[in-house]
């Protein structure tokens, strides 16, 4: 069974630009979660999507947004990139009524 996949693996952007990160969940999973792992800040919850709806949001500014598509894949958009947005962005998926989250390999975003 295929795991959670993320693309691209690496992304280099300039300050002020927009970044789009993509995630495909495990087959049968309806929830997608996004986390940021920044140096010195640890793993922080960003967003949770389930059945196409945003269910919860972490303490991040509105320029962090996303969506979930009918096939349950998800996109994370970061607008007006700042240097401190440089981090590993991890996507996880979870099944219906399940509290377990299974993570993908991540997208390394570098903002210069």
């Amino acid at each position, binding site marked *: 069974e295929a795991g959670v996949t993320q693309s691209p693996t690496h992304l280099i952007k300039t300050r002020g630009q927009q970044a789009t990160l993509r995630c495909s969940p495990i087959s049968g999973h309806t*929830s997608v979660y996004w986390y940021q792992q920044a140096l010195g800040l640890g793993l922080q919850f960003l967003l949770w999507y389930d059945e196409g709806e945003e269910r919860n949001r972490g303490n991040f500014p509105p320029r962090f947004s996303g969506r979930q598509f009918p096939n349950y894949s998800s996109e994370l958009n970061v607008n007006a990139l700042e240097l401190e947005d440089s981090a590993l962005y991890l996507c996880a998926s979870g099944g219906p009524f399940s509290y377990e989250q299974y*993570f993908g390999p991540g997208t390394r975003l570098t903002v210069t």
Partner: protein
Amino acid sequence: AQSVTQLDSQVPVFEEAPVELRCNYSSSVSVYLFWYVQYPNQGLQLLLKYLSGSTLVKGINGFEAEFNKSQTSFHLRKPSVHISDTAEYFCAVSASGGGTSYGKLTFGQGTILTVHP
């Protein structure tokens, strides 16, 4: 809200020795507990979970953890470690009900386990 404290940022140990990685949590509601492992330049892999039932849970790669509600702890143990266990380990909690914490994992700061030959 929940918080997680991993009491050791780094744990060095020799191969075949036992190891314990400590995790304490704080929460005003019931929680589910998890341990994840992260190898360099990779995502997180679920090692084990406590949702309910027996307080001693077994996971992959020979790891186990014990949930202690009175001490709000969920320490991870392995009786004999291998070089390949060298990685960063994260303890995480998730609120078992609704509310603003619903659905998200709150992580500790991580413990780097280094196994020496």
